[in-house]
């Protein structure tokens, strides 16, 4: 199993303000599968993705990536897994503003030591970015920026792509466009995908879906 999430718990705040966001979330995902996580705003979708993406640590429960329990990893180990096995696409595109499109596309691959110019070329072409390689993020539209983010996340050939409302900041037509490209690329590369979204139509395009309410998946 590529990903196993086991009775995950996560709370924020202290004392009276303490709020249990995840209250025993479990799921599994096989290689190449795609899973949509739906739920209202504030239901904890991002929190779950951050935990799976090793950006944050759970209060209880465990996550196993490729059979390796991440609770056993230290800070450097988590950074290494983020770099090598996971790709991240955020709602706000999180590009490095001072790097060109080409620089951003290659960034994670370079960090992971898996820089493959041919693959990045392919990605750029398929994402329709070939004509914009020397531009800076601020000179791109939202949809273009998100396509750069998708390319960057896939450039190091991760086994798992995590996308947190990747189309949340985009208009409908652009959303559909970006979503389609992302799914296509994942399918072709055999990359598993977990995507958080509040749009039912977007969720329908993935192979599985789960709904997050009151801290649990259903």
């Amino acid at each position: 199993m590529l990903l196993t999430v086991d009775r995950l718990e996560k709370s924020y705040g202290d004392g009276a303000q303490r709020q249990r966001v995840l209250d025993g979330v479990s799921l599994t995902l096989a290689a190449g599968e795609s899973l949509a996580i739906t739920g209202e705003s504030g239901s904890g979708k991002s929190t779950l993705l951050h935990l799976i993406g090793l950006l944050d640590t759970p209060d209880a429960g465990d996550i196993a990536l490729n059979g390796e329990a991440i609770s056993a990893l230290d800070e450097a180990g988590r950074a290494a897994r983020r770099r090598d096995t996971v790709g991240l696409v955020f709602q706000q595109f999180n590009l490095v503003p001072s790097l060109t499109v080409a620089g951003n596309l290659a960034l994670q691959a370079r960090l992971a030591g898996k820089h493959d110019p041919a693959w990045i070329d392919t990605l750029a072409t398929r994402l329709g970015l070939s004509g914009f390689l020397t531009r800076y993020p601020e000179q791109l539209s939202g949809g273009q920026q998100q396509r750069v983010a998708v390319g960057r996340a896939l450039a190091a050939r991760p086994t798992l792509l995590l996308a947190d409302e990747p189309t949340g900041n985009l208009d409908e037509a652009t959303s559909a466009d970006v979503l389609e490209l992302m799914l296509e690329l994942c399918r072709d590369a055999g990359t598993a995908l977990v995507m958080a979204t509040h749009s039912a139509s977007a969720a329908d395009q993935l192979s599985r879906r789960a709904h997050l309410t009151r801290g649990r998946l259903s």
Partner: protein
Amino acid sequence: MTTTALIALLSHWRRKPGQLATLIIGLGLATALWTSVQAINAEARASYDEASATLGGGSVLVLTARDGRIPLSRWALLRRDGWAASPIIEGEYAIDGARFLLRGVEPLSGLGNGTAIPEDQAIGLAFLTAPGVLLAAPETAELLRAAPESARSSLPPVRVSAAVPRGEIITDIAVAARLLERGDTVDRILVDTRERTGRTPLTELVPALERNTGSANGEVAQLTGSFHLNLTAFGFLSFAVGLFIVYAAIGLAFEQRRATLRTLRALGTPVSSIIAALIIEALALALLAGAIGVILGYVVASALLPGVAATLRGLYGASVAGELAIRPQWWLSGFAIAVLGALAATALSIRRAATLPLLAAAQPRAWAMASARRFVQQAIAALVLLAVAALIPHFFSGIIAGFAMLAALLFGAALILPPALALALRLIQRLARGPIAEWFLADTRQQLPGLSLALMALMLALATNIGVGTMVSSFRLTFEGWLDQRLAAELYVTTRDETQSAQVHEWLEPRTEAVLPIWSAESEIAGRSGEVFGVVDHATYRDNWPLLIATDTAWDEVAAGNGILVNEQAWRSLGLALGDPVRLGTQPSMTLVGVYTDYGNPNAQAIIGLDALLTRYDSEVSRLRYGLRLPPGDTPALAQALRAEFDLPANGVIDQAQVKAFSMSVFERTFAVTAALNVLTLSVAAFAMFASLATLASMRLPQLAPVWALGLSRASLARLELIRAGVLALMTWLIALPTGLLLAWVLLAVVNVEAFGWRLPIHLFPLDWLILAVLAILAAFIAALLPARALIKRPPREFLQIFAQER
């Protein structure tokens, strides 16, 4: 990985060359400020060393033998090995019962300007060729001439020099060896290690000889030291200001790239790579900015140095080359501050990078709350430092303690600034009415953490300005006033001997308003060696003499022969009080009726009535000097007539007006140098503020956009930004004022007393403070101007984008 991270970090500068320039200029200016002060300081120090080398100190090593005598062959050995060595014979020489200190020097190998050979005596052939000459003060010369023919026959002719201390005779080493019957031995060998060194270390070449560094004493060293101390204080302050600026610059560079760093971390860059990248970047920036700063500092220092050189030459006779030598110690220290400052500042960035939350804080208020806790911590640290500063003088004394106190005071005041501003803003916020005022104050508070380092630098610059300005002005005012008092007579005359003295006295009587004898005798004053002067009862003294404390009837009692005045140094070191008995030598005591200031004199001194002096000391009294009162317009003519009528010694007639005018010009120059450094410090601080504001402006759109959307135009937002800068500068000035005054007080009343035994009174210049407040606000306005303009020019589209992006 590190390379990739570094490239990503550095790419920021390519996109924002303005910010890079700001950072480098800020770092460079801080380095320049430090370097220029260092350069001036090092140059001054080098010249003091030369001056004190002339007096047998500084870079000069004094070699002595344990049994007291050094064979002359040792000297020859040292010379042959390449050392700049010069022998000295010194001994007591008695003629007809009178004792003198006879010093034999070797003029050709003499160090620097010669070994204590007064400058007004060219080393003529007479000094070298048989029978040689004896150089002596007029008083000494007279005693020598008064000796019976039989005792004098073995002596070379005497030449009068007002520059030789009384009781001393200087002559060629061969003459001294003969008179003191030393044969082939000398007492000391001076080695100037700076001039050149020999091939063999001294420890091997002359292992039997002891090596000491002779310490200079006397007035030159004292006043020189005082000025040098001021420069050191300035260097120290500029260092502090520079450090804050470097710190602010690097800290801002971090803030600007917070998002990039977060992204890098999220993509899996290990913390260690990020740390390595930050350190490499800081070093590169420090070296680049350091080089610019050192060059700039050199330019500034060479522009200022002629003034300093003149000051030193004038004040102390210490000669400073008008040109700046590039000394490794100050350009190294320039790079050192840039690198150390950058690394210290990077340490903070590194800590922040390591603990940077990978996920952006959900609530912006979290940041504000965290900084509230930091304000409390800062305030506590500041109070501890200030308490330490207040306690130091109770438990420690000495100059190091003085400087430690300065450091604690300055850093304490700097640290208390942000929390104090936050508190003040909160108090004002309670009183504020109206949505704009409330938003403005809340927003100002939120900006405080980002601005606080620049504000600290501004505070330190202002405090330095006030402190050093007060110190120099007090110095100048005190000395001017003091010279006016001490040099109340229009002309000062020194005669060769008592016969001439009597003739001059008689000749002067009808030609002046008053002839005031400056007669004195060497004597112990309450057990300390010093000099006692006798004065006649004259309005000149009553009206002018610089008394620190005195009884109402002081001058009457002095005139009556009962009262005694002592100088501040003796008073402080002996712990005397008015009314205390003061013993003179072995004679009965007199009552202390007053204390007078006597700057630049390391020894004890006292004043009693002239008659009392003559009865007590009689034949020991030197009666060669006079002060003359006459209409100021008549002085040139009288001085000329005096010189024509009598064969007076070199510098025998001194015009008081000339001395004063000269001293004034010296202080003017000191003042100019200080003012220039002050302006420089202030502009550097203003630049730091500009850099901070410019950087903050680019990160502040999310705060401004909502208010803009609610109907505040970009122009009024920009106006508010200007007002904010001015208000913050004014508040900073309010804290800088007491800090600066305390600084001046510590320098004048603590450090100076520890160093020299006299205390300078503080003079206050409120007008200067107001001007400084205006300057500070102006500087803040100028600093805020460009960012405010950029805000007006900012396209509304960018404001709208803020709403498009959920943060």
